[in-house]
C-alpha cells in the first residue's frame, strides 16, 4: 500500500488509547481462558479450591495484571462514552473525575483482596 504523503497533526492520544484497548483486551482474554481452564480441569471449585488457587503467588500476580487491564480498559471505554454523549464540558469533566476516582478505588480494593489477608 502506498502511504499518503501528509503531515498528521495532533498529540496522537487516540492512537495510544487504541493500542491500550487492544493490549488490555488480549490480556483479559488470556486470563479468562486460564480461569475457564482451571474450572474445567477441577470440575468446579469449592472454598478450599479457590483458597488454594489464590494462595499461589503467580495466580495472584496474574489476577492483578488482569484487574489492571480491566480498569484501564474501562477507563478508555467509559471516557469514549462520556465524550460521545455528555456534551456540557463541566458535566463531562465531573463524570470523568468521578470515574477516575472510582477506578483508582477499585485498584486499591483489588490489592486489598489479593494481598490484604495474607
Amino acid at each position: 500500500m502506498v502511504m499518503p504523503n501528509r503531515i498528521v497533526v495532533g498529540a496522537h492520544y487516540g492512537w495510544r488509547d487504541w493500542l491500550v484497548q487492544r493490549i488490555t483486551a488480549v490480556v483479559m482474554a488470556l486470563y479468562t481462558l486460564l480461569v475457564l481452564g482451571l474450572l474445567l480441569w477441577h470440575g468446579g471449585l469449592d472454598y478450599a479450591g479457590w483458597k488454594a488457587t489464590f494462595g499461589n503467588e503467580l495466580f495472584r500476580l496474574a489476577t492483578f495484571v488482569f484487574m489492571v487491564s480491566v480498569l484501564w480498559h474501562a477507563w478508555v471505554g467509559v471516557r469514549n462514552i462520556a465524550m460521545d454523549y455528555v456534551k456540557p464540558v463541566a458535566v463531562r469533566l465531573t463524570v470523568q473525575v468521578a470515574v477516575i476516582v472510582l477506578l483508582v478505588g477499585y485498584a486499591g480494593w483489588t490489592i486489598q483482596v489479593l494481598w490484604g489477608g495474607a
Partner: protein
Amino acid sequence: MAALDRPAAKPRPVYLNLLAIRLPLPGFVSILHRASGALLFLIGIPLLLWAVQRALASPESWAQMRVVVAYPLGKLVVLALAWAYLHHFLAGIRHLLMDLHIGMELPSARRSAAVVFVLALVLTLAVAVKLW
C-alpha cells in the same frame, strides 16, 4: 459566481432521530458492545471484587456469597453480566480480527456480526441452564 450554483447550506449540526434509524446488524452488535461494556463497568467490576473478597475471606463468607448469588434476583444479575461479558468478549475478538484485516468485506462482516450476536445468546442460555 460559482458559489451561487451550490445548493443552500444544510442546517448543521444534524440531529439524528435514533428511534427512526433502522440499524444494520453490525451496527446493532456495535451498540450492544458499548452497552455491555457500560454494564460491566457499572455492576460487573464491583460485584466481581465483592464476590472474590467474600469467596476468600472465610468458609462462612463463601457460603453467604453463594446464598446471595443463588437468590432469583442474584441469578438474574449474574445472567445479565454473563451475557454482557460474553457479548463484549466475542465482539472484541471480532474487532481484533478486523484489526488484522480478517473479515473486512461487508458480507463477512455481516456474517461475523450475526455469529457474535447469536453465539453470545446461546452461551448465555447455557449459563442460564447451569444456574437454574
